[in-house]
C-alpha cells in the first residue's frame, strides 16, 4: 500500500514535470497573434506574462488548437477554423488541480477500505472534551459560536460537523449547549445538527431548541448579543469555531473576562493573532479543517486530510526545485507555473 501511494505520488509529480518540459520546450514555435491577456483599452496585466509563443505551444500539445485564449468576452472566430475547447493558458492550473483531486480521491478510497492514517495530536481539539468536562463540573453551559458567515462558506459547514461532535459530548454529560447564530439560513442547520447529536448520544429529550438562538445578521449586533449571553449566563467554556472577522477579539476578550476556558479555530488568518492572544487554545488555519477528521475519524474526512498533506509535499518539492532552477537561471518552470 505504501509503494502504491508512493508510485502514485511520484507519477503525478513526473507528469507535472513532463508537461512543463513539453510546454516550455515548444516555446520556440510561434503561433498566431494572440491577445496575451486583456484585449480592452489600456488593460495592463500586472503579473509577469510569458510570451505569446508559450501559450500557442501549450495549445499544440493539449488540444491541437492553434489560437491561444484571451480574456472574457472574446470568441473564437470561424475564420481561424478552430474550436477552442480548452484554454491552454490554464493548463498549469488544470494539471495541478487534477493531481490534487486524484490524491484526495485515492486517499478517501484507501481510508474507506480501512487503511489507517496518522493524524498528529491537535491540542485544541483534545481540549474540547476537557472544556466540556469543566463546564459540567461547574454546572454551567457551554457556548458554541459557529462563526458569522453563511452556509455557503466552507468554514460554516465544517463548524457544523464539529458542532455535531460537541453536541454528542454535551448530551452525554447533560450539559446545556448554547449556540448563537448570525445567519438565518444557518439556524435550521444548527438545529438539525444539535438534535442529531443528542439523538446519537441517546438523550433526545435533553435537546432544547431555545438554545439555538438566531440573534442578528449584522456583525456587531450579533457580537453584542453574544457578549450579553456570556455576561448573563456565564458559560464555563466558549468555543469559537468558524469564520470570524473583526468581532473575534471583542468576543474573546469578553469571554476571558467571565473566566471561561476558550477554544477558537478559524481559517481567517487575519483574526488568528487575536484568538491566540485571548484564548486558551487556537486551531490555526487548516487545523480547523483537520478538526472534523480528527474528531470523527470518518474515512472521507481523513482521506481528504491525507490528500491535502501529500499535495503540500508536492508543492514544497516544486518550491525547492523552482528555487534551485531560478538560482541557476532556468526560468522555464517558474514561467510555466505563473497564472496567465
Amino acid at each position, binding site marked *: 500500500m505504501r509503494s502504491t501511494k508512493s508510485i502514485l505520488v511520484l507519477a503525478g509529480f513526473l507528469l507535472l514535470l513532463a508537461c512543463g518540459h513539453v510546454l516550455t520546450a515548444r516555446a520556440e514555435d510561434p503561433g498566431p497573434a494572440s491577445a496575451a491577456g486583456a484585449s480592452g483599452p489600456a488593460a495592463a496585466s500586472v503579473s509577469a506574462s510569458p510570451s505569446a509563443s508559450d501559450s500557442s505551444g501549450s495549445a499544440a500539445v493539449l488540444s491541437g488548437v492553434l489560437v491561444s485564449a484571451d480574456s*472574457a468576452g*472574446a*470568441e*473564437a472566430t470561424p475564420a481561424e477554423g478552430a*474550436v*477552442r*475547447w*480548452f*484554454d491552454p493558458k*490554464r493548463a498549469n*492550473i*488544470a494539471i495541478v*488541480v487534477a493531481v*490534487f*483531486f486524484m490524491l*484526495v480521491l485515492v486517499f*478517501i478510497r484507501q481510508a474507506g477500505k480501512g487503511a489507517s492514517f496518522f493524524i498528529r495530536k491537535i491540542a485544541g481539539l483534545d481540549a474540547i472534551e476537557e472544556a466540556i468536562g469543566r463546564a459540567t463540573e461547574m454546572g454551567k453551559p457551554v457556548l458554541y459560536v459557529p462563526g458569522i458567515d453563511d*452556509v455557503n462558506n*466552507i468554514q460554516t*459547514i465544517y463548524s*457544523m*460537523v464539529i458542532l*455535531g461532535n460537541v453536541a454528542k459530548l454535551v448530551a452525554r454529560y447533560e450539559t446545556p449547549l448554547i449556540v448563537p447564530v448570525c445567519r*438565518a*439560513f444557518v*439556524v*435550521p*442547520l444548527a438545529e*438539525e*445538527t444539535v*438534535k442529531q447529536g443528542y439523538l446519537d448520544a441517546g438523550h433526545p429529550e435533553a435537546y432544547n431548541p*431555545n438554545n439555538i438562538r*438566531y440573534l*442578528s445578521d449584522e456583525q*456587531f449586533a450579533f*457580537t*453584542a448579543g453574544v457578549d450579553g449571553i456570556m455576561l448573563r449566563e456565564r458559560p464555563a467554556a466558549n468555543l469559537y469555531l468558524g469564520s470570524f472577522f*473583526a468581532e473575534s*477579539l*471583542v468576543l*474573546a*476578550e469578553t469571554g*476571558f473576562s467571565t473566566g471561561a476556558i476558550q477554544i477558537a479555530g478559524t*481559517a481567517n*488568518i487575519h483574526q488568528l493573532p*487575536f484568538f491566540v*492572544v*485571548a484564548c486558551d487554545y487556537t486551531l*490555526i*488555519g*487548516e487545523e*480547523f*479543517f*483537520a478538526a472534523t477528521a480528527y474528531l470523527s475519524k470518518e474515512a*472521507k474526512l481523513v482521506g*481528504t486530510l491525507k*490528500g*491535502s498533506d501529500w*499535495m*503540500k509535499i508536492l508543492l514544497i518539492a516544486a518550491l525547492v526545485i523552482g528555487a534551485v532552477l531560478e538560482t541557476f537561471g532556468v526560468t522555464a518552470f517558474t514561467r510555466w507555473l505563473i497564472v496567465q
Partner: protein
Amino acid sequence: MKKELPLLITAIFGSFMVIDYFVPHPAVSAVGETLQQWAIIVISFSYVLGVANIARINGEKISKRSRDWPFALPLLAGLAFMLGVGIFGGIGQGTLFNDFYIYAYTPMSGTMFSLLAFFIASAAFRSFRVRTVEAALLAAAAIIVMLGRVPVGAEIWDKIPAISDWINNVPQMAAKRAILIGAALGAISTGLKVILGLERNYLGGE
C-alpha cells in the same frame, strides 16, 4: 428525492462552473454566464427569506413572551420603519432613509468596531508575556512593526520603518503564504467533496 435532488444540482452546476474556467468555448461561456445570473437571483431571494425569518423568529419571541422579548420590539419596529421609509421615500442623498443611515446606523457601527482599540490594549497588557525566547522574539517584532507603521517610529530611529518592512515582507510573508496555501487546499478539497456529494452536512443532519 429530498437529499438526492440537491446533491444532483450541486454536482451538475458545481462541475460545470469548474469546467467553465478551463473551456473558453462561447457555448460554455454563455451557459456559465446564465448560471451566474441565476446564482445572483437566488442569493437576492435569500435576503427576502432572511427578512421573513427575522420577522418570524422575533414575532414568536414577542407572542410567547420568551427570554429578552422586549428587545424584539425595537428590532421589528426599526426593520419596518427603515423598509417603509426606503421604499416610499427613496434612498438617495437628502432622504430620511439616508439621514438615519448617516446619523444613526453609521456612528453605531463605527462605535462597535472602535471597541477593538480598547480590547487590543487590554489584551496586550494581560496576555503578552515574555515567558520564552519565542515570545520575546514575538514581542520585539510586534513592537518594531507597531512603531514602523506610524510616523513616530521614524522619529524615534530612522531605521525602524526599514526593519518593520523587512519583518512584514520576509518572515511574516513566508508564514502567511504557508497558512494561505494550507487553508486554500482545505477549502478546495471541501469544495470537491461538496460537488461529488461526499460532504452532505450542508443539507442538514443525516
